[in-house]
């Protein structure tokens, strides 16, 4: 299983290895509710395409933001010709802006104030909350791993926006009848399935973004932590958050100081509602039996009224 062996070098991603490895010749079956519960064994989580973000290597050039918009046909309205990294205005995720890079200032482990450029996009949870809450299966986990959105199914209820532990999906508030949800889909349809790496990773000039299998990215991250003489904090953000995500972050300052959500549970979220939902058939049947019996016994002898 060395499908991403060559791909971990920026720009030399090998399409043939990717297709042979991940798809195993089975073809690409992407969005069907049947694949909603993609096999949840640990092995498959180790094999999903993943990106390692090293905050210490990011220079905030926003090349990834522009590449993202080009690759996904999103309006490219952020003017970066004036100014320099760090001087640009703060950008937020929007339904038509799926990744942003912003300088975040916070204290590092020793209390010194430092600024790091933080890239934000969908974390691609291994057990995605948004997929579990969507009432119509408009959000699905593709067989490759990333979570895809299908506007044709969406009813616009915005439960995904409300439920996402990382506050990622965004809604198109300005459309009257056919707004969409927007979020990073890791270029699955246009690039991953063609054996290409996500556009943002390809565009990154410094190697702050590194693409590969999740197990390899985890190994890479652990290696960097171990061999760096305590440069990094000993925490890979995304390794365990919300049950684990395909995007992994390395930092030299505690993540919560750089605006990362620190209150995300380690346990996968979908369990929280499934625990209740899965009991409903039993409860309903019990109630039917109970009330049926009561009604039957109390109503006996009234039929001949």
């Amino acid at each position, binding site marked *: 299983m060395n499908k991403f062996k060559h791909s971990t070098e920026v720009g030399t991603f090998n399409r043939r290895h990717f297709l042979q490895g991940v798809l195993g010749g089975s073809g690409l079956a992407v969005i069907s*509710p049947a694949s909603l519960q993609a096999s949840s064994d640990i092995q498959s989580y180790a094999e999903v395409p993943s990106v390692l973000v090293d905050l210490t290597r990011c220079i905030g050039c926003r090349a990834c933001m522009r590449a993202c918009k080009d690759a996904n046909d999103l309006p490219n309205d952020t003017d970066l010709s004036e100014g320099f990294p760090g001087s640009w205005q703060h950008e937020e995720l929007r339904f038509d802006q799926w990744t942003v890079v912003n300088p975040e200032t916070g204290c590092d482990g020793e209390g010194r104030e430092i600024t790091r450029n933080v890239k934000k996009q969908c974390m691609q949870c291994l057990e995605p909350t948004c997929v579990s*809450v969507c009432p119509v299966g408009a959000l699905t986990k593709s067989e490759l791993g990333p979570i895809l959105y299908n506007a044709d*199914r969406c009813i616009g209820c915005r*439960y995904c926006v409300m439920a996402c532990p990382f506050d990622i999906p965004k809604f198109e508030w300005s459309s009257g009848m056919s707004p969409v949800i927007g979020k990073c889909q890791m270029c699955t349809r246009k690039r991953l399935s063609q054996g290409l790496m996500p556009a943002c990773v390809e565009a990154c000039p410094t190697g702050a973004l590194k693409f590969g299998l999740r197990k390899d990215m985890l190994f890479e991250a652990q290696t960097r932590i171990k061999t760096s003489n305590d440069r990094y904090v000993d925490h890979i953000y995304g390794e365990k958050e919300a049950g684990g995500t395909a995007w992994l972050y390395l930092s030299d300052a505690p993540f919560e100081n750089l605006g990362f959500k620190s209150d995300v549970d380690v346990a996968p979220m*979908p369990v*929280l509602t499934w625990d209740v939902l899965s009991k*409903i058939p039993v409860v309903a049947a019990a109630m039917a039996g109970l009330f049926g019996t009561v009604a039957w016994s109390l109503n006996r002898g009234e039929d001949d009224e």
Partner: protein
Amino acid sequence: MIGWTFIIVCVAILVWAAINVSYDKRPRLLRPLVVLTVLLIWAAALWTLIRRFTEGLGAVTGMNDAAPWGLWIGTDVFAGVALAAGGFVIAATVHIFKIERFKPILRPTVLTAFLGYVLVAIALFIDIGRPLSWWHPLVMWQHHSIMFEVTWCVILYSTVLAIEVSPVVLERLGLTKLLRLVKITTIPVVIAGVILSTMHQSSLGSLYLIVPGKLYPLWYSPLLPAFFLISAVAAGMCVVIVESFFSAKLLKHGLEDSLMADLGRAASIILFLYLIIKFADVTARDAWGFVLERRFQGGLFLLEMVGGVAIPAILLSFRKFRNLQRGLVAASMLVMAGVVLNRMNVSWFGMAVHDQLNYIPTWMEIALSLGFVAAGTFLFFLAVHFLPVLPSTKVESPLETTNESGAVNR
């Protein structure tokens, strides 16, 4: 600013009218003023609707990506469904538990619930971003979603309510064969209604089980579904009391005082149960400290628990108090307000990040919500006027539901 002034004036007029009615006063201005106010509210609501469907939810509501659910979901739908819970409670009381004393209030209660659910369905249609796709959950199943379950339950229960309310129309039209058919199905239909109600009333609370990191710990609890269900049952009963009171005043028919007092007593018991579970829950989760940690949310929590639950529960537990008509109604209104506040706390104030509200509704959102309440009330009185809903409207065929009227027709 003009919009907000308009809303405040409208609410003031309606409150003034309600107070007058409850004290049997009828100033000459009352009727024309109320009619004018309601018409203006509907005009504003229509304006809101047109803009919502052309310019999008962002143009008329205060909702945003940090607060994707606003007043229409958090209050109109959540509180609306809770307040309409009287329908299944009274139907079960009469048809399953055979406590037939409550029969006289069965029809108006079921009618109220039916109208409530129709309005909730319309509110949902307006609030979902892609209204023309409203039917998708019916064919595109995703049974891991609470929202999917709620959608199904609400649609099915609205059907149940339509069947339960149908004898009123069938009687009026004299369709005896259909009436007999409906009569045969009454008990299974009522049982289905109770199950569906239990499921979706609690599931509205379950919607928030997925946000442990976002909902303030005073409200986030694994018992959210139970709290939503229990509070809805109590509030549903209190709605019956308040509604019976006002319809008796306006339509000048008698009020079943002893029935109302019994309902008040039942509500009191349920509220005490709610208080005990709530107390145990907050204690078990060691969450009392959160009352002081953020004063805004802590204060709202205390207001809800004391003003909306404890005080009415205590008042309603005294027989002497229950027998005071206006006292009973006032306490019931407190319970209703408590449930509305609870739903707002869960969906709005409790979801705020760090003392800072993510969302302030616009006056247009409130105008549409008021429009719904006005429409519901209007439709209720319209139905009562033209259909045999209230026992006292027809003297010669007294007090029946389907059962006896079928017999009478025979």
